[in-house]
């Protein structure tokens, strides 16, 4: 176990990757959003304003997932670390950074609600539909989404390392075909209304559960691929 935790410390050598860049992206998109709210306010727009900028650092987690493998896997092998220890330690590192962002997200949302949208009726964190089930579910949603982006990046990098660019492309083509097939099926059975209704009904809590399932699926699939990867 201590070797797995040492992998976390090894991963956090890349402090810039895991901590500073996500914070800078979040901070910058927050500042830009507030500036725009300010401009709108001086222009006389006093209705409630909602921005989607809080998702910005989540996209970056795709890159974090990729870098967690490409930057640290070869070094971990030189440190005589098993692939299992590397995998678990890396997932823990991702969970720690995702949790850091989720906490900021929840705290920011609570401040927004308490200050009536920074006194400008403008919301960056506390988006209505996301916070409908309370701050805990909202934070969890943010955490799980970050983890999902991470494991997609990590899994892609693992497939690339093990099988090369051709197979990675084929995996994505196969997934796209599946998606198109699903869209076709919904259209064919004329159930679009039901599908949208279902998504609305499960709400952010249900969506979080769905994403937990997807994260576990992608994360668990990348482990056997990593087990035979060569640095």
């Amino acid at each position, binding site marked *: 176990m201590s*070797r797995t935790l*040492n992998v976390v*410390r*090894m*991963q956090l*050598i*890349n*402090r*810039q*990757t895991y901590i500073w860049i996500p914070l800078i992206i979040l901070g910058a998109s927050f500042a830009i959003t507030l500036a725009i709210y300010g401009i709108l306010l001086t222009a006389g727009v006093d209705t409630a304003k909602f921005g989607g900028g809080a998702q910005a650092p989540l996209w970056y987690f795709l890159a974090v997932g990729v*870098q967690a493998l490409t*930057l*640290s896997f*070869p*070094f971990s*092998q*030189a*440190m*005589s*670390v*098993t*692939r*299992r*220890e590397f995998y678990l330690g890396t997932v823990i590192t991702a969970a720690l950074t995702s949790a850091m962002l989720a906490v900021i997200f929840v705290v920011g949302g609570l401040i927004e609600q308490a200050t009536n949208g920074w006194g400008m009726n403008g919301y960056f964190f506390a988006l209505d539909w996301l916070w409908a089930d309370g701050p805990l579910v909202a934070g969890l949603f943010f955490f799980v989404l970050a983890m999902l982006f991470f494991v997609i990046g990590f899994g892609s990098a693992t497939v690339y390392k093990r099988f090369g660019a051709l197979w990675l492309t084929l995996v994505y083509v196969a997934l796209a075909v599946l998606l198109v097939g699903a869209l076709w099926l919904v259209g064919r059975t004329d159930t679009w209304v039901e599908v949208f209704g279902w998504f609305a009904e499960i709400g952010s809590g249900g969506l979080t559960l769905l994403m937990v399932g997807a994260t576990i699926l992608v994360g668990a699939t990348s482990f056997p691929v990593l*087990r*035979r990867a*060569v*640095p």
Partner: protein
Amino acid sequence: MTPVIEVTGLTKRYGDTVAVDDVSFTIDQDKIYGLLGRNGAGKTTIMSILTAQNFATSGGVRVFGEDPYENARALARLCFVRESQKYPDDALPHHAFRTARLFFPNWNQEIADRLIREFQIPTKTRIKKLSRGQLSAVGVVIGIASRAEVTFFDEPYLGLDAVARQIFYDRLLEDYTEHPRTIILSSHLIDEVSNLIERVLVIDRGRIVMDEDTDAVRDRAANIVGDTAAVDAFVAGRDVIHRESLGRVSSVTVLGTLTPADRDRLAAQGLDVAPVSLQQLFVRITQSAAEKAAASEEGALR
């Protein structure tokens, strides 16, 4: 001697290429081995498989009697320093050393600090900005200071100047004397390391062509120098691996230990005997193996 590593029938194929071809050998505890071979001979592949970084196509590898793959207990006793090791992007040298300290149970900070000073490794520069020689020095520090029970150095000296290489050899030998352990050193600078290594493993195109004590190897061949006719008469029927002639003087490298009778005969005929350095012997043996392989291939084609 207890073997710490046992390799039996190890084969590694990449598509049609056979990188390692049915190799078997053992590594004894507390000895320094030289793993010698040309580029692409299979040295790095063998060391990668022994440390569970790469996978065998067939055959078995035992480290401390166990399969090293996904085996933290066995792996923690190994350290593999590669020539082209990659480090995390943001890493400064001290990050790498601190991490090594976490993972190698016998890590010694004193020797690490001393080596960092002697190699003049800049501590405030990112590893990816270091020069080739400084990068090699980082690997060397990890390899020596980890004091792992089995340490592999895969051409650790790339870009190191002569002074730094001498520091490496001296410190390795000093630390080995105080803390005996098994060291496997792959190198192209054979004469430089020949005083260091106790046993030689020569690998050529994926096969082991020599597995002997260094002292025995030194006796294994000799250069006979003198009048061409006399030299030819002496070497007739012997295993000649190299021949050079200049005018009426020839120098012929023969395999096989010279007996006292041989030496008397050489002295009587006015022929000189010169020792063959490990590097010369290595070059001659791999060359003659290549010629034999080419000849048998030609034969097969006919």
